[in-house]
């Protein structure tokens, strides 16, 4: 139990006392640093806090209890696929054979991990219908960058250097346009049609000889499958461009749709979403990239290869000159990939299909129930998530989606993603995932419906929520205007009081 008086924790720095703690390792000989020239030495030691282990444990135990997490409750944060993180996977990643293997260890001593990675590539290729997969990207956004860099390399390899535009639907994830920019492309935004899908006319109009690629999040961030995808892909390829699928929402379509079979040239996976590796309070993740035949030569290096004798190895430096190179050090976020591998083998093909079936069923059930009190802008079968809107409630009562989200906290729930995608007024993107029981879905719907009633009967209650959280709403304006981004011993008046 985090004791009340300590809910607002002193910082590590306030807990520090000179001379406390330490002694975890033997003291070095006195002359250990004599070889280091004075000019290279540190003069003022870093003012790190000094604590003993008990204080450290208490600090982080108490702090942790201020967090909402999947392990404490329902977390329907749309677009993030907050499903249960199996504990077997945490155990597996900590096996010393996996955990202490150095990334530059010669192939001969790394056969277990190499085999796992090679098998994982194969599984992801089968799931996506892609030809091959690189496990290197550290997250979805890096997977996107990887994909776009491959597309650029492809066009260049053909001497096709005029393509400097990437088409991105307005309902796409923010990382898509940001990636295109980062890779030096201009982003062309394509509006959505009334049904939530891409506006085909606008799309065709934008496509042209300068189009390097289109990036399509499918299912989209509205939770909708892009029904006209076949048509769109045909046009893309006809225009000489390539098609990137943001596969972050794959949790909706496992065993139902394989992007590679459908004609996408490249896609990324978000293993921290679809394959349940823990979100870690903001990471780590992993963003493997799958490619079709066209982009195969450009995959980042090193790839994991299997020799005829059944041994595994990494590509050596310079082995495949067409590669775009590397996006980070070493082979990838292997510790994350071990968890993904365990998840995938635990499920198998039938299990993965069931994952999507259950995720989609749960989302539609919840959509139906939430629809009892909220607007549902796209009222057709959704995939793994759906958008609800409080636009009507706001008009009637002045209560905003933000307020409703905060009020959900009092009811014991993590709020959905709000005001995202940006295209829906007072939107909230709700993603229940397949690991939540129908009782939980019902209880959450009941809470949302009860809040809708509160908006009418007692709008102030909702507008001033949360009431039962460790802290109330924050002064974000001051935080941004006068940023305080690091601890410094400050005079009392300069700093918000500790409780």
């Amino acid at each position, binding site marked *: 139990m985090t004791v009340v008086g300590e809910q607002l924790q002193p910082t590590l720095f306030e807990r520090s006392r000179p001379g406390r703690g330490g002694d*975890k390792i033997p003291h070095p000989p006195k002359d*250990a*640093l004599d070889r280091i*020239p004075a000019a290279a030495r540190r003069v003022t030691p870093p*003012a*790190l806090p000094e604590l003993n282990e008990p204080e450290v*444990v208490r600090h*982080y135990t108490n*702090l*942790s209890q201020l967090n*909402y*997490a*999947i392990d404490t409750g329902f977390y329907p*944060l749309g677009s993030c696929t907050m499903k249960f*993180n199996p504990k*077997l996977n945490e155990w597996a990643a*900590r096996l010393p054979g996996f955990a202490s293997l*150095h990334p530059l260890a010669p192939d001969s*001593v790394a056969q*277990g991990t190499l*085999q796992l990675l090679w098998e994982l590539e194969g599984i992801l290729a089968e799931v996506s219908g892609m030809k091959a997969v690189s496990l290197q990207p550290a997250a979805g956004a890096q997977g996107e960058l990887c994909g776009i860099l491959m597309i*650029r390399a492809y066009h260049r390899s053909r001497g096709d250097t005029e393509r400097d535009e990437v088409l991105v639907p307005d309902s796409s994830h*923010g990382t898509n346009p*940001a990636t295109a920019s*980062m890779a*030096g492309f201009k*982003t062309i935004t394509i509006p959505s049609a009334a049904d939530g899908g891409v506006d085909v006319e606008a799309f065709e109009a934008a496509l042209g000889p300068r189009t390097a690629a289109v990036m399509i999040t499918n299912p989209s961030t509205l939770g909708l499958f892009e029904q006209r995808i076949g048509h769109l892909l045909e046009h893309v390829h006809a225009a000489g461009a390539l098609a990137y699928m943001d596969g972050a929402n794959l949790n909706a379509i496992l*065993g*139902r*749709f*394989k992007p590679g079979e459908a004609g996408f040239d490249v896609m990324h996976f978000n293993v921290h979403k679809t394959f349940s590796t823990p*979100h870690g*309070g*903001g*990471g780590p993740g992993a963003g493997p990239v799958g490619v079709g035949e066209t982009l195969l030569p450009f995959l*980042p290096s090193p790839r994991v290869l299997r020799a005829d004798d059944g041994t595994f190895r990494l590509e050596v430096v310079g082995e495949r000159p067409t590669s775009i190179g*590397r996006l*980070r050090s070493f082979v990838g976020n292997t510790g994350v990939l*071990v968890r993904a591998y*365990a998840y*995938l083998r*635990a499920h198998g*093909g039938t299990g993965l299909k069931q994952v999507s079936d*259950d995720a989609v*069923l749960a989302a*539609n*059930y919840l959509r139906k129930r939430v629809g009892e009190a909220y607007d549902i802008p796209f009222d057709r079968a959704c995939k793994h998530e759906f958008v609800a809107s409080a636009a009507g409630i706001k008009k009637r009562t002045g209560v905003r989606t933000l307020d409703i989200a905060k009020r959900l*906290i009092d009811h014991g729930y993590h709020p959905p993603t709000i005001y995202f995608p940006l295209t829906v007024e007072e939107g909230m993107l709700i993603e229940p995932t*397949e690991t*939540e*029981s*129908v009782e939980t879905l019902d209880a959450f719907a009941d809470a949302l419906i009860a809040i809708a009633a509160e908006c009418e009967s007692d709008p102030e209650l909702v507008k001033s929520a949360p009431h039962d959280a*460790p*802290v109330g709403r*924050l002064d974000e304006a001051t*935080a*941004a205007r006068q940023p305080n*981004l*690091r601890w410094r011993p400050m005079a009392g008046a300069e700093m918000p*009081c500790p409780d």
Partner: protein
Amino acid sequence: MPYGPHTAGDRERMLAALGIESVDALFADIPENLRASQLDLPGPEPELELAARLTGLAARNRTDLASFLGAGVYRHWSPPNVDQLLLRGEWYTAYTPYQPEISQGTLQSIYEYESLLAELVDLDVVSASHYDGAAATAEAGLMTCRATRRERILVSKAVHPHYRQTIAAYFGAGLEVDDIPLVVDGDAAGTTDLEALERLLGDEDRPVAGVIAGQPNFLGLLEPMAAIGRLAHAAGALFVSVIEPVSLAVLAPPGAYGADIAAGEGQPLGIPAQYGGPYLGILASTDALVRQIPGRLVGMTSDVKGRRAYVMTMRAREQDIRRDKAASNICTNQALLALAASIYLATIGPHGLRDVAAQGAARAARLETALAAVGAHRVHPGPYLNEFAVHVPDARAVHRRLIERGVLAGLVLGDILPDEPSLADTLLVCATEVTTDREIEQFAAALAAELSSHDVATHTELEVAR
């Protein structure tokens, strides 16, 4: 379903509420001609069997060798409280703290991470984490371009080759990267060539946005960072220092020698090697660059009741707000690893961190002596902290055979830097506080044995050749 809650009855109930017969109805929007072929995958596998499979795979990795391999990833003693606290579900099953009221744990821990790292690097702004040292360094390079509105950077060849390759990939789109060569011989051999740097900076048609050098450098040597920084600044460029965080307990920090940005790999701060990640990309800058730094930032503020509280701030740099105008596309980062580093630092403390760094230096000195005694001498004369290159004839083969003797003899430099002829037949070896006397003796003895049998082999070959 291994983890799903739905019973057949639950599914029936939901279908009934939706008025459909089968879940297939919910997938009617997938065009028929584009529906997936079956998933041909192994499994499902019950936990008991899967656990045995995973144990078997892990056991095929050999982590029992006496290892002298560093090269950017270092073995350190991580007090067990670090991992035990990380394993609390409240940390690792939460996500980005979008809702600050119920995420103060994560938010305060990131604020503290920023503060701890700011102390270490002696710079004011620390981002909440990047993917790894390489990606953070590439982002640092991009920052210099944004901040100076120039399009060319210079990177020392003594920066980790993976980082340089990453920079190359990130910079492929119209931005330029030039290498700064290394001094070839003399006292400064193996460090960044200051004269060459000055020349490269002097090209007025191609003004330089940033200069990137590492301390210690990839070969373990200490660089003249202050001098590099002065040259960069004189040319209007920003100076990016690639740091190793443990060394900052004893080496001058970037802030002290005028670096504008520090980037580096946080793995040494209590994070296991795990074959390449997840690690922790450190990225820090001066206050002046705060609006250019990519990645999350957490600030201290107050809540409606005036109580101290923390929140993500300056979000207008981020992709979910600014889309194509964002400072970077980064979204999911490495928050849990920043937490690991914080717990490590809080546990080991400033004196402990100094001990770790100094112990590494002492162990490495002992290693140098032991290897020299069997004829493996250092390649470069300059000072180093805890990693250095040694000459070993036929390095690749010797390295391979030493594995059979239970020794992982560092890195074959010719493999990772094939285009540096001076590094052919050299090994990059390192020691840390966990390196024992016994391991050092084992290495030296095994190497002595290999070298003498190698001599024999060479002689025999010579004789045969005659």
